[in-house]
């Protein structure tokens, strides 16, 4: 495994671990999600640069556009949760358990 790939793998799995284990506030989860998307963006950009495939040169931008949409959606949900639950803590999202 090349060292660049190892670096981005570590980045991805650290962000995934952040989503899984550190979920106090929705904002921190959203930041980890951005970390995931950023590592994917870098992986995709480096892959298309290294292999010189013209077909895939545009894909990092597409990925970035989608991740921006997703981040916007996440922030909208953050605001909606703050309005309905009073705080955006993930621990307070318990009304559906019963």
């Amino acid at each position, binding site marked *: 495994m090349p060292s660049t*790939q190892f670096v981005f*793998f570590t980045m*991805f799995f650290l962000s*995934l671990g952040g*989503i899984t284990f550190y979920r106090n506030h*929705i904002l921190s*989860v959203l930041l980890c*999600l951005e970390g*995931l*998307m950023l*590592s*994917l963006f870098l*992986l*995709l950009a480096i*892959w298309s640069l290294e*292999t010189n495939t013209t077909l895939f040169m545009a*894909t990092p931008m*597409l*990925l970035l556009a*989608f991740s921006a*949409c*997703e981040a916007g*959606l*996440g922030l909208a*949900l953050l605001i*909606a*949760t703050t*309005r*309905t*639950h009073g705080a955006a803590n*993930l621990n307070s*999202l318990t*009304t*559906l*358990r019963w």
Partner: protein
Amino acid sequence: MNPITLSMFTTALLSGTLITLSSTNWLMAWMGLEINTMAIIPIIARKHHPRATEAATKYFLIQAPAAATILFCAITNAWMTGQWEINQMSTDLPIILILISLAFKMGMAPVHSWLPDVLQGLDLMTGLVLSTWQKLAPFYLILQLHSTHSLTLILLGTMSILVGGWGGLNQTQTRKILAYSSITHMGWMLVILQFSPELTLMTFTLYVTMTLPVFMILHQNNTLSINKLPILATHTPTISALIPLLLLSLGGLPPLTGFIPKWLIIQKMSHLGLFGLATITALSGLFSLYFYLRLSYISSITMSPSSNLTTATWRLTPNSIPLGLKTTIVPSMMLLPLTPMINSLLL
């Protein structure tokens, strides 16, 4: 919600799944999944209600990392083999990780616990979309990946059947029971997937046919917990007579439609000599049969104590049965004699 906005989101929902269904490339498939997720979240959260918002937040926080993991595996595969095609993935670890994250997106057994929660916060028609249409795109991707990792598929499938039956036993909310029933049916589909993909397709179609009238009936009478089920008899007596048959059909009892997939799946397994697997799936189907039986017992076999004035509200304000319900309720009970035709159409 404004009808124009709603129609826009519905179109995006449809086209997202269709993009995934018509793509052979992981990137396009991922885009379809993302469009799908982003379209359904406003539909989930369209009632300004704490539960709806919470369901939307949970759904988003589940779907977004799962989709990112799918794309990560696809890129890893591209780094290793230079291949973006869905059905030409060859490296082991990305395939297993993709299978697990697709199962996560659908709410299959080891990673299922979000599905009952999210469904609990929805209105029943959105719940119907979530438990049928939303599963189509991830399931198609699993179908494309099939026959490489039999152990993962069988483990996911049997665990889904078991957990779906087991989890539903203790529930009193109809939406949670329907969520667990959905988990069970997805388990049946996944168990047979690698042996006969056509049977999977048939099981999916029949599951949609059977679950549609159940959701519609519960939506029409606004039955959210099982202690409101006896009211069905006073509002719509015909439906109340039919609903035990519908529920037993979902459970898979012989003269009804739900028996077809179970029959053919177990037949296929015993043809292949997988007797242990067939026994486990058949026996763990009994768990879900138990809670369907309890639902039908409460809805029509017992009579709730009430005065004479309240027993016949349907005479004062007759409730008409909607057309969609009329057309789906018949095939969801009586398709069993047509098994040879379904067989020749799909197999």
